[in-house]
């Protein structure tokens, strides 16, 4: 286990996040201060991000609990489908949500039947609704992993001791929730902080200005690079505080090594009819909330398939898949390099290890506009940035998924090293052999899961390619964006459907591989 690959990745991350900011600041002339409008943007950003995080987590707990203690047909598929909202491109998701909750949406139509006016989702409630739609499934998955990390024997022991649901809740589930919740809150908070198009569109106007929009304004309306850099520093500071808070609050549970198997614990305590009904209700409500907009996207996409320009589609799909696999491969390499470095440093330099871990999380709060522009300023004197559009997109997409990958892989990596590291050392196991025989079997599941997530996220993300675009080499999200900009709404719906299906298929293939018994 060498240290330098991890430190190299950490340096790369710092360069991409803080370095790009410095590039922009250096290019700026004169200083900048934050005006009243900027402070309003900071306040709104905090309000919506806190609400989005808290609501997503509160709603995710019952859903995850129901999924954790119930066995039913299609449960696996349901869990996999939970990944879908998280993977949607922004404009597609907004139009999907409006099909259900908009003025002309399903709910308003139903209300009209009974003589009530249309509902209005515009405002803070719309912003939070959209963020919960994106992130509640993510929180559900994080909690579900928490439940699965409680060793099955504990539940068996609890049953033998005659513990009821309440006791199990207090002794096993609450400690787990306390450990997982701060991280989940922080991740969703960070994801919501950089929101811009969703916040503006559903927020109903300039009241819903986020910091990212203010950064965008500084770049393109004012061309005030100093202001853009200052706002990005504000966004970073918020992100850093959130990441630090989560790290401080997360109380580690001491359940010991989980069997990590796929066998779900038998829950003798949850047989009562009322509990069963409650779980069924929770799952049904969650499915309606999440899948109705997805079905609307599916329906309008099917209708638009025939309008798609087939000549450009093949190339766009190929480029998107290449970028997705590139990003996924990079994410895995980066996460492993960082993970090994963290595990090794934890023994001697706990603070450095924590810092590197935080750096990964902090990246979620980096402004995509800032990264793209900073990279452009850096690369332009050296090479033609447009020629590097796809590799750069893959690289930036990889770093965006890295926090999730690191989160998933790190515990397994720790487990493998703490459990068997000394033994392997004494046996002289090193290098590839040690990785293949010792590490990989333990981290296989989270590693494949996060590789799939990275591929799917990269697939759906417009990312920096919008700044480095080359008309000849559009990815699928860029093609979608161009279609919507040229009156081609039907074709854009069709492209959105293909995009969602492709990105979900990638996710599902990896997930299935991850769940395969070895």
């Amino acid at each position, binding site marked *: 286990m060498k240290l330098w690959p991890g430190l190299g990745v950490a340096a790369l991350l710092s360069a991409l996040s803080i370095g790009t900011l410095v590039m922009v600041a250096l290019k700026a002339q004169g200083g900048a201060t934050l005006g009243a409008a900027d402070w309003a943007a900071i306040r709104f950003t905090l309000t919506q991000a806190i609400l989005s995080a808290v609501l997503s987590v509160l709603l995710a707990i019952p859903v995850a609990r129901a999924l954790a203690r119930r066995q039913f047909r299609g449960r696996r598929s349901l869990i996999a489908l939970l990944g879908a909202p998280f993977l949607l491109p922004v404009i597609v998701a907004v139009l999907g949500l409006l099909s259900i909750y908009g003025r002309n949406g399903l709910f308003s139509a139903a209300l009209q039947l009974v003589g009530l006016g249309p509902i209005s989702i515009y405002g803070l409630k719309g912003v939070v609704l959209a963020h919960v739609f994106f992130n509640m499934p993510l929180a559900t998955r994080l909690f579900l992993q928490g439940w699965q990390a409680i060793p099955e024997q504990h539940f068996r022991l609890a049953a033998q001791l005659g513990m009821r649901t309440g006791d199990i809740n207090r002794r096993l589930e609450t400690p787990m929730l306390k450990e997982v919740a701060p991280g989940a809150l922080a991740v969703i908070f960070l994801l919501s902080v950089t929101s811009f198009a969703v916040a503006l569109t559903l927020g109903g106007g300039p009241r819903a200005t986020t910091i990212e929009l203010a950064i965008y304004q500084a770049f393109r309306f004012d*061309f005030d690079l100093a202001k853009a850099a200052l706002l990005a520093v504000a966004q970073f500071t918020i992100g850093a505080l959130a990441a630090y808070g989560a790290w401080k609050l997360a109380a580690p549970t001491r359940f010991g090594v989980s069997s990590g198997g796929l066998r779900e614990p038998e829950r003798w305590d949850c047989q009562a009819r009322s509990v069963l009904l409650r779980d069924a209700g929770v799952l049904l409500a969650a499915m309606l909330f999440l899948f109705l907009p997805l079905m609307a996207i599916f329906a309008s996409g099917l209708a638009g398939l025939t309008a798609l320009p087939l000549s450009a589609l093949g190339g766009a799909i190929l480029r998107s898949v290449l970028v997705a696999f590139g990003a996924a491969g*990079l994410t895995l390499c980066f996460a492993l390099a960082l993970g090994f470095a963290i595990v090794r440093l934890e023994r001697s330099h706990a603070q450095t290890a924590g810092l590197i871990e935080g750096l990964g999380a902090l990246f979620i709060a980096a402004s995509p506009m800032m990264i793209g522009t900073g990279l452009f300023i850096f690369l332009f004197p050296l090479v033609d940035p447009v020629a590097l559009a796809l590799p750069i997109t893959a690289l930036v997409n990889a770093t965006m998924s890295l926090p999730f990958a690191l989160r998933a892989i790190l515990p397994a990596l720790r487990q493998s090293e703490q459990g068997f590291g000394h033994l392997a050392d004494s046996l002289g196991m090193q290098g590839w052999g040690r990785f293949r025989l010792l590490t990989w079997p333990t981290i296989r599941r989270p590693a494949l899961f996060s590789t799939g997530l990275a591929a799917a996220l990269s697939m759906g993300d417009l990312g920096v390619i919008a700044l480095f675009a080359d008309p000849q080499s559009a990815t699928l999200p860029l093609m979608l964006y161009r279609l919507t900009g040229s009156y081609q709404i039907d074709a854009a719906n069709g492209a959105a459907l293909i995009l969602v299906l492709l990105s979900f298929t990638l996710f599902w293939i990896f997930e299935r591989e991850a769940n395969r018994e070895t």
Partner: protein
Amino acid sequence: MLKMSLIAAGLALTLAGGAGAADKPVLNVYTYDSFASEWGPGPAVKKAFEAVCGCNLKFTTAGDGAALLARVELEGARSSADVVLGLDTSLTAKAAATGLFATVKDGRKTDLPGGWNDPLFLPFDWGYFAFVYDKAKLKTVPHSFADLAAAPKSLKIVIEDPRSSTPGLGLLLWVKKAYGTRAPEIWAGLAPHILTVTKGWSAAYGMFLKGEADMVLSYTTSPAYHRIAENDDSKAFARFSEGHYMQIEVMGQLAKAPHPALAARFLAFMQSDKVQSIIPTTNWMYPAILPKSGLPDGFDAALPAKDALIYRPDEAQAVRAAALEEWRTALSK
């Protein structure tokens, strides 16, 4: 690292697809996305110009006019661009101040209301901003900002954000030009009707087509798109008694253009009948110079010059920061 370089090599191969005739000069034209996309004028313009210029025409794209200017500013004097195509007159004062643009020879006499006179930029097309609606759904159509403010609260419009979108900025200047110091009052009257503000034109127009809003800020030429391309005559624009703000799209040549002669030739070509007759049904704007063949069937003649509102570039630049603040304050209440 091996994996990474393999990926890079693979990507380089796919990117290198188009390079062939390396001996011809390459004219580098920076433009906005939808101009160069396969639904825009780009492909036809490229084909026609390459047939006569003995060169290769390369489009490099940015999101829209403002992104284009930001890109040119970031690249500065080292830019390899020959021509920048797709700024509008709310950006040209700022573009001129960069000192990156060369003076151009006068172009052809334009058909723009108010004519054209600018040492650095030549127009290639133009349009009027307008609120577009569905004739079957909206029965009482407002014909002024005052009408719109007085309409029942249930009449909803969706507009674009001036900070992130060209039409959004157009609306800001429209209200300011028409009402001057009364602009905040007009915005306050419009506020209850504004369903939401979007980042760009496409989200706003998409929401309108979904039936979320009764009207959307777009162009007087939008109904022609539906009529000609989709055989759908259901859309119309509301003619406003205050007049309509104009968007004039222009092009300029960089002072440090690697191919100045070709660049000048391209600017002239963009104003030729050949290109001007392509513009209406690809960029869905009015040609700067009416071609001999006139406008295509289904493409209504532009509103007369007495309806045209526009700021001079220097005025637009001077007024926009204060106008934005008024807009933000009125809509944040």
